């Protein structure tokens, strides 16, 4: 895999040199974290991992419609190992070529990429394409390839999907989609999941909007989910919304690769939730969101979460405050000692002016029943940053915290973020 990453970056470096006019951009984040880790039942560790996230984007290649996008990360531990994988680790998140056709919003992607058609996110090595079709409003997208193997096995040998949609300007969009992940082992073809879906968008006037989708898995012969949401804007500053979700877990979790826990499939259990929220947005003054949600699992009691968030922009500050109550009814099952309803409070402020950034963020939980003998937890984080250039920022985060699992935690982090666009503009005769 490493060779593959190396090759891609090599390719990226070469590409601009044989095209007429290309933009070449590099962006990334370098993190050096410092943590002392001590979870009950695990050995104490000092962690000092250095991680580099690196992305390369090059556009205007070939005839100007081709672009290349690469992203990945690599970590090296400067003290104790921070994961079971050893002292270094890396991942190649994506690396693909994208060609945009001059018309019909046609596009083709090839390589490793994320696909989120119909709202199902998958990472694959393969090809994808989409185009508008002649009767106005019709569009088709398709993708096929190999699912990028997950860390825990149990992924298929191939993955393919498509979505066909019809739009009615400003009023309606209906989509029909399919996603199939299958295996080709000695026992013949197997199906990991074959999801058939429909999705819907409808808007009535400027104030009413409906969004929704239903998915059915033919591999387990059952609906995996229904998810519908309705919003209403009685006034330009007020949005009221409600949503409903129903998910039979045995079908929804069927393709998990975490074996039995925590996504249990052997219970015939349905999860459902419904929620409502009100957003009041007073431009340049404040934004308030009040929300309520009710959850129900067949195997456990119902629970609720409700609260509010306020966001106040005051140049050069942006501040926020929120409170949520998670009232967990009685979801405890006999042996569990670590379950409790809780209150959560959060407040933050962000300062951005010129070359200086700074922020302060505090989050705290108050548990009704003590967990491992402690009835509260908090984390206070301060960050300050300096822009050496508009494209290059250096920042340091420090946090202290205390919670039922970790006693008096202290964490530090140093970060460099950079985003250089149009690094090389090779205009031969432009």
């Amino acid at each position: 895999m490493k060779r593959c990453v190396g090759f891609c970056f090599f390719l990226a470096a070469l590409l601009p040199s044989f095209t007429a006019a290309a933009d070449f951009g590099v962006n990334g984040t370098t993190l050096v974290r410092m943590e002392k880790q001590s979870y009950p039942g695990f050995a104490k560790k000092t962690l000092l991992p250095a991680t580099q996230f690196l992305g390369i984007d090059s556009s205007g290649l070939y005839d100007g419609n081709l672009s290349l996008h690469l992203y990945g990360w690599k970590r090296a531990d400067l003290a104790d190992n921070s994961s079971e994988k050893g002292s270094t680790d890396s991942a190649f998140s994506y690396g693909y070529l994208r060609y945009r056709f001059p018309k019909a919003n046609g596009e083709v992607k090839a390589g490793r990429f994320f696909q989120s058609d119909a709202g199902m996110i998958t990472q694959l090595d393969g090809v994808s394409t989409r185009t508008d079709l002649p009767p106005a409003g019709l569009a088709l997208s398709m993708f096929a390839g190999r699912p990028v193997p997950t860390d825990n096995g149990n992924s298929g040998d191939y993955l393919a999907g498509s979505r066909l949609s019809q739009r009615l300007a400003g009023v309606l969009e209906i989509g029909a989609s399919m996603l199939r992940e299958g295996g080709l082992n000695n026992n013949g073809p197997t199906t990991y999941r074959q999801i058939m879906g429909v999705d819907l968008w409808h808007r009535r006037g400027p104030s009413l909007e409906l969004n929704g989708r239903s998915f059915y898995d033919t591999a387990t012969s059952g609906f995996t989910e229904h998810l519908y949401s309705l919003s209403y804007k009685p006034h330009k500053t007020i949005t009221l919304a409600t949503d409903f979700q129903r998910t039979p877990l045995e079908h929804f979790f069927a393709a998990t690769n975490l074996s039995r826990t925590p996504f249990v499939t052997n219970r015939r259990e349905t999860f459902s939730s419904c929620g409502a929220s009100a957003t009041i947005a007073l431009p340049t003054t404040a934004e308030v969101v009040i929300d309520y949600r009710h959850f129900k699992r067949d195997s456990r009691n119902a629970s609720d979460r409700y609260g509010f968030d306020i966001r106040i922009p005051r140049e050069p500050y942006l501040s926020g405050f929120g409170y949520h109550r998670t009232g967990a009814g009685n979801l405890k099952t006999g042996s569990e000692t670590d379950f409790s309803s809780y209150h959560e409070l959060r407040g933050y402020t962000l300062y951005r002016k010129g070359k200086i950034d700074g922020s302060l963020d505090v989050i705290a939980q108050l548990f009704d029943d003590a967990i491992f003998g402690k009835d509260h937890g908090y984390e206070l984080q301060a960050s300050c940053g300096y822009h050496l250039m508009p494209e290059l920022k250096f920042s340091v985060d420090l946090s202290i915290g205390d919670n039922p699992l970790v006693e008096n935690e202290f964490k530090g982090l140093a970060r460099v973020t950079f985003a250089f666009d149009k690094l090389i503009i090779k205009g031969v005769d432009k």
Partner: protein
Amino acid sequence: MRSITTPSLLALICGLLFFNACSALNTKSDRFPATHPEKLTETRPICSECHQDQLKAVLKPYAAFDHTPLFIKEHRFTAGRDGQLCSLCHAASFCTDCHANRNEVKPSTKLGDRPDRELPHRGDFMTRHRIDGKIDPVSCYRCHGRANNEKCVICHRQR
């Protein structure tokens, strides 16, 4: 239902590529620019403050993409329909900060300097996840369970 095989799908894709090329000659729908012409600041954009009417390429009003708290919470719907539009402003790495097969750090660590972002798992989540995970495991499965399991298997081994 008859299962669909890879070769037939690949054939379909090739057909579609061809069709793509042809339709490019035939239809006259509006095409997006590759990137948003105006550089926006690092705050949630309200499209309808700068744009009126319809976004022709997706046949929806601009207001449907205003980055309101509701849009952020339900971005799954727009991402599933109009993913191409998102790439006007968002590099795929913007999405993979939260959605990835393997992620090195939780989003609120990587973006610890952005308390204003809507990042999952702020603060101590190891304690809270036992509660939140029991209440709504469905929300977790969007990002864990098929992907991003590395940290989970330390405790959630096959039993």
